[in-house]
């Protein structure tokens, strides 16, 4: 395996609110290798986006705090949690780029597309305004927009949602970042446009060999793009593995639940779509034991008392579940192999 571009170790992020402390991320660790696509999946509010935005330190402090003991090592040399704000300005945009969820709101309505793209280029590279604009046009061509020169003079409201997301991608690629973080890049788009955007991301990833962190709750998107997957629940990683591990040999009951709740083409239409009963726990006061125990059909006594560590399945695959313990009862995996990998 090549060298890691990003090593996140025991990342804990909290929000200090009037009512108390919300522990949004509670000890997340993972590594991302060069040229790799890592998907972070989980339902809303599980800490995916907070994790991603903390890597770029985009969440304002206060209210968010990175807790002591957390480490985000970027490119083997930058300890993100310790950089000053002005050092961060050189990391953001230049070394890392971010694609946001909603292209309708993440572009400035009063600035032309070209100005918004070239702005970042001019911040990080010594180029003239005209050169930056030319580069902006080249980037728009790269993301598959025709008449790029003309497009640079247009405003976001003159473009469709899919086009704007292409602009957003061009913008994040402006300075050839080593790491691209895509925070639910397709959630706000039509299904047909979703497929185009995923194709585009995959193509760009191949062309530029950029490492990508893909945040999503859409397992279809994961199957399309990711090399490795981490599954998050209530601010923690509950299972990690390669794409095949997660889709064909999932070990955590939460992963089973996620896979079962993907609609299938061949299912009987009289069958209801499966869902995971209950809601995620309140992160003001996270439960003592396994956070998923309250919703888990296989929960044992120990699950409610002690939070499980990760049990290794293989070098790449591990799951934080007591069912993995040698003394635990054998549970038949209720997911058919390959369920959910529709694509």
């Amino acid at each position, binding site marked *: 395996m090549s060298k890691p571009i990003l090593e996140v170790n025991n990342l804990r992020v909290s929000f200090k609110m009037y009512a108390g402390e919300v522990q949004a991320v509670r000890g997340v660790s993972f590594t991302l290798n060069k040229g790799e696509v890592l998907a972070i999946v989980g339902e809303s509010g599980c800490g995916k986006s907070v994790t991603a*935005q903390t890597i770029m330190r985009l969440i304002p402090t206060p209210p968010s705090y990175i807790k002591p003991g957390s480490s985000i090592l970027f490119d083997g040399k930058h300890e993100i949690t310790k950089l000053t704000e002005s050092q961060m300005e050189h990391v*953001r*945009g230049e070394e890392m780029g971010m694609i*946001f969820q909603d292209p309708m709101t993440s572009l400035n309505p009063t*600035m032309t597309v070209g100005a918004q793209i070239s702005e970042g280029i001019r911040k990080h590279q010594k180029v003239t305004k005209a050169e930056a604009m030319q580069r902006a046009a080249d980037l728009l061509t790269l993301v598959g927009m025709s008449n790029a020169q003309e497009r640079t003079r247009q405003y976001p*409201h003159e473009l469709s949602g899919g086009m704007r997301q292409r602009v957003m991608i061009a913008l994040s690629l402006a300075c050839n970042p080593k790491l691209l973080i895509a925070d639910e890049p397709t959630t706000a788009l039509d299904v047909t446009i979703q497929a185009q955007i995923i194709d585009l991301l995959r193509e760009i990833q191949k062309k530029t060999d950029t490492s990508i962190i893909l945040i999503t709750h859409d397992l279809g998107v994961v199957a399309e793009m990711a090399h490795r997957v981490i599954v998050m629940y209530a601010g923690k990683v509950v299972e990690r593995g390669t794409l095949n591990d997660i889709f064909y040999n999932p070990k955590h009951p939460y992963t089973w639940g996620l896979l079962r709740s993907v609609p299938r083409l061949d299912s009987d239409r009289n069958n209801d779509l499966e869902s995971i009963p209950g809601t995620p726990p309140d992160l003001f006061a996270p439960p003592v034991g396994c956070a998923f125990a309250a919703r888990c059909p296989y929960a044992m006594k120990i699950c409610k008392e002690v939070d499980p560590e990760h049990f290794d399945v293989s070098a790449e695959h591990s799951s934080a579940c007591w069912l993995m313990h040698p003394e635990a009862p054998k549970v038949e995996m209720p997911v058919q192999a390959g369920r959910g990998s529709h694509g």
Partner: protein
Amino acid sequence: MLKYVLRRFVYMLITLWVIITATFFLMKLLPGNPFGEVAAKLPPENLKILREQYGLDKPEWQQYLKYIGHVAQGDLGVSYQFPTRSVVDVIKQSFPASLELGIESLIFAVIVGLLLGIFAALKHNKAGDYSAMFIALIGISVPSFVVAPLLSYLLGNKWHILPAGLWQGPEHRILPALALSFGTIAILARMMRASMLEVSSLDYIKTAKSKGLTTWKIVTSHMLRNAILPVITILGPIAVNVITGTLVVESVFSVPGLGYQFVTSITTLDYTMITGLTIFYAAILIIVMFLTDIAYGFVDPRIRMSGRR
């Protein structure tokens, strides 16, 4: 853009016409008559001659048509109280002082108000924010009839830093302009702060930050332009308010402005003066709003475009 401007212009003319008509007929409903107490002492024949002279003997619709015709030519009639002065003359004489005072205080208010608002927003929930908003709160709650005499008395009479009144050199401008701008500063500061805070939580600010821009760059090139839009909308009416001069400030500092003339004309039921001045005020308001709409179109490309279709 041209079509947008043209359409706004036509709206402007229609609004103006509605206002002239409404003022004309509403004024006819006022009790009393324009010749005041003199009318009771005059013999009926003389009164009849007077009424004929002013065209008051004709049916109202004829008076109205005649008046509209005159207004269209820029003639607002002759004062009933001072038959030697036309309404246009009065405006020409007293408006420059009001206008100058208004513009000076408006410029001052916009600069100070916006800066105060931006400062407060950037220091959100910190000491700077609280002190800026405290100043704004005072500006809103203390009326000009308190601020104006206080400034005149303290800085003028007591400490002799600036003249307490009158309208001569540039030093005479400072205190009235200050007094007049006080409330406006407060309104603008609060609007700008709210607007800045709203913009700062929007997604595209996060996008700007993710590009690695400095806070200064994010504020100047992403936040200000978007945050100033709602402020521009209220700037029109505010400007008119300030320019047409508040009566209190003008009278405290003995400024020979238009506000004073307006109030006198109402107490003496000077028909032509009331309608004339109302139309004048309304015209300023509407023209300024028209200019505001155009300015808005320049700042916000979305509005510019919708006019193009």
